């Protein structure tokens, strides 16, 4: 756990009252007030009774008079006491609550590195691209959130998306089925996914759906345990799942099935049914989404979330640069390139090959493509021109003793597979 969050949590705990950690001082105030109210009510009843008795009393009964006098002063005493008590405790709780707030500020909030994110927004996205941003946001919502929408009927869903998110039916219809099937899986309904995978398996290469089909068999068996007898479920697991399903070198598919069988045989039920069911359902969802996206050529991860991830990871570098810039008064040196190297994880940098010419220390481009030398070291065209004086002389490779001439070089292209 990292420090700003520790501080927040400490301050949060301190803000609450000490006895059980689930109450605030304001709640204590409420309890005191309620207590005070009951007292007032009681005293009111006493006073009422007292008045009634005084009325019914003969005026010359001195003994009773003294008694009533005593009671009256008792009531008054109690009233004053309970007010005092209420007032004192309210003041006390208010003070403590205030202290908690001050501490929250001084302990928790001050531990944050204060930085205004507007300061690193150097390259503004013009309003002219609003439509594109909207498109990216909409397709992101389509890709991930259709199964969260309360309506699932195709026509209603399309209209809902149009009304709420301003999505054109052309965009959303691509994702409708994805959303509906995912919705089903989240609600323990495997049938639509089952049908879909069956049809697609018939239409396409059979090995494609293997993982999904397997997961669905398990899911179905799991659901069956809720309604069918143990024998039926066992029979299904053993005899009705095609044997081919379990044959995959890479994944031990039979594991889940045998674990289920074991539990059913011994206990007659599945341990932790709900959590297990959720786990299998979520595996089905993942597997189905991947199959669906690759089949319909949809991005498996939305470009927006990749860009945002890269944005969050790179924000640190921008912040550091902004701090250096403000203290050293240096400017942005290259207009169309960031002035610093951003370290991103491999999962974000595998889209295009990046080759830095070892001579010029520049990224190769279409204008300045990479060339392979006779020794199969690679340099950029500009570097090659420089070393060979525009192809007129032979030259030594900058990395090894081999001599090259321009005729021995070859234009190359890096291709990611």
């Amino acid at each position, binding site marked *: *756990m990292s420090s700003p969050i520790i501080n927040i949590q400490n301050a949060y705990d301190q803000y609450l009252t000490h006895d059980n950690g689930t109450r605030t001082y304001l709640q204590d105030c409420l309890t005191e*007030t309620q207590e005070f109210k009951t007292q007032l009510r009681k005293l009111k009843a006493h006073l009422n009774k007292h008045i009634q008795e005084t009325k019914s009393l003969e005026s010359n009964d001195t003994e009773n008079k003294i008694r009533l006098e005593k009671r009256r002063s008792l009531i008054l005493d109690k009233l004053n006491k309970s007010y005092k008590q209420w*007032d004192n405790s309210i003041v006390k709780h208010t003070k403590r609550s205030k202290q908690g707030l001050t501490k929250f500020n001084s302990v928790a909030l001050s531990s944050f590195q204060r930085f205004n994110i507007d300061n690193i*927004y150097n390259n503004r996205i013009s309003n002219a691209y609003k439509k594109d941003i909207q498109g990216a946001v909409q397709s992101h919502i389509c890709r991930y959130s259709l199964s969260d929408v309360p309506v699932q009927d195709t026509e209603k869903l399309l209209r809902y998306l149009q009304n709420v998110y301003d999505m054109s039916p052309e965009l959303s219809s691509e994702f409708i089925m994805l959303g509906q099937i995912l919705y089903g899986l989240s609600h323990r309904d495997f049938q639509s996914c089952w049908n879909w995978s069956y049809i697609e398996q018939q239409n396409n290469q059979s090995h494609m759906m293997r993982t999904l089909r397997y997961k669905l068999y398990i899911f179905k068996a799991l659901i069956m345990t809720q309604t069918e007898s143990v024998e039926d479920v066992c029979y299904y697991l053993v005899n009705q799942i095609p044997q081919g399903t379990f044959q995959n070198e890479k994944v031990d598919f039979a594991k889940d099935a045998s674990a289920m069988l074991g539990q059913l045989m011994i206990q007659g039920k599945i341990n932790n049914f709900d959590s297990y069911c959720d786990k299998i359902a979520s595996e089905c969802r993942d597997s189905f989404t991947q199959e669906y996206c690759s089949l319909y050529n949809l991005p498996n*991860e939305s470009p927006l979330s990749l860009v945002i991830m890269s944005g969050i990871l790179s924000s640190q570098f*921008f912040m550091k640069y902004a701090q250096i810039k403000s203290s050293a008064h240096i400017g942005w040196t290259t207009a169309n390139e960031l002035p610093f190297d951003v370290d991103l994880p491999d999962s974000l940098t595998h889209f295009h*090959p990046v080759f830095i010419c070892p001579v010029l220390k520049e990224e190769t481009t279409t204008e300045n493509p990479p060339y392979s030398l006779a020794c199969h070291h690679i340099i950029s065209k500009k570097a090659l021109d420089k070393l060979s004086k525009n192809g007129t002389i032979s030259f030594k490779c900058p*990395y090894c003793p081999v001599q090259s001439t321009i005729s021995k070089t070859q234009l190359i292209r890096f291709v990611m*597979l």
Partner: protein
Amino acid sequence: MEKTTANEENPGFKYFESFMGLNESSFKIPYSLLNANFKQFEISVHKEASKLKQKLSLVNDLMSAGTLDDEEDALSELNDMIKEVNTFEKQLHHKISKEWNLLTRIKKRAKFYNEMNDTYEKNNFKGINEWYQKYTNLLIADYLIRNCTLEQQQQAQNETGDPELCNPGIIFLKQKHMEHLIDSDVLTKANEISISLTSQHDLKPLMEWIKSNKQRLVRRRSHLEFKANFQRYIELLLNFDIGGAIHCLQTSLFTYIGNHFDEVTSACGLLVYIERCIEQTTFQSKSIAPDISSDDIDHLTVKQNSKPGTHFTNDNDAYSYFFHCSPPSKEIDQIDSTEIVSPTNIQHLFNAKSLEKYTSLLDQSSWSNLSDLFLDEYYSMYNIPKNDPLLIYISLGISALKTKECLHDHPQIDPQYDVLNHYSSDDKLENPCPICSKYFAPLSEDLPYAHHTESKLFDNPVMLPSGNVFDSSRLKLLANTLREKGIVKLNKDEVIDPIEKTVFNESDFVTMYPT
């Protein structure tokens, strides 16, 4: 396989602290709301205590008097006290539920950000991706809430049938169960006031906000209050409510004359000009079509008729009347004076006389300027970023990802050979570059490239005679898959160059040494 940015020796997200720095407002806003709630509580406690004290002393007095009547009075006083305490209790309930809501926000947020650190600590790649997914959703919700338009609001309300649920961002948050992670109440308020300014030209919500935050605005020396009043004045003029405009000028605008001298004087000038224009056009339209009757204009004309000699027969007269010189010769088109004055042709009249100074005052874009000014004040009050964080992260993210290869036409791998990109059991699906994707390509063009100091290629690069360099193991895997599926006939040690679509022997491989 996949590596994460987690550092083995230093578990957790390496830049967690500075990332939290960017998210400070997630905690600062609920804190300041808690503070405000507490202050209100303090006030009501103070009020309540003094009220009760008063009543108590009254009861004390009555009771010590000791007569039956006084006791009965004391009883009714006591009853009042109970009522008083009752209302106080209700207020308290309200404050407490508000307090809990804010505390829940803090707690859930602490948990949320901690989750990020945890997934990094555990090197849980799937978890990390899911976390970024959630954060993206938050940014989307923030963007949707901020950019909601009146039209969208109405459409969404038709769909949900709930006036509370009409901002797409709020709906989205609710569907994602992330209500506590964004201070949506604060953002919606800003959006509502902004909408009322830009779409409805309604100053009321803004004025209310200004009123309740007056001290702060004064402390910040903000121009917002003046600008809002100025806009009110302009609107009155455009509606020909000359009396109202004069009243507004006298009661509010003049108080700002110290800091806004030029603007106030031009406001006065505008008053004179518009007043004359109304009078002038009304006079002309009356002489041409005497039966045209608009109540406002009639009323004004009657008043103005007491000042003879100021009727102009044409616009040039008007110009020379106000500026004591003849109008510029490059006359733009003449105004059709038979038209009744309306906000649109008044501006036209001003344009014709090249009176930019006044035209700009009447320009409808002043509404969006006012809205911008308001949002500026509002966001800085809560320390909320002025620019949409979604856009900021997109801008950062794109330039960190953008390579020189992006946005070019690439040698396409023929779709029939593109079999490696399909999901196969446990291989992760390769993603197409987000920069080159449909929606980001256009806006990526304006953003800078990432800076690289090291090549980022692949293992075992081999060159084929075609000049294309591939990862040799991937190339072999491709050949195998194509062979298995029967898409291409390949011998055992043959591979195919999926771009040139030519078959080569593995012995043609030339090992490359990129540095």
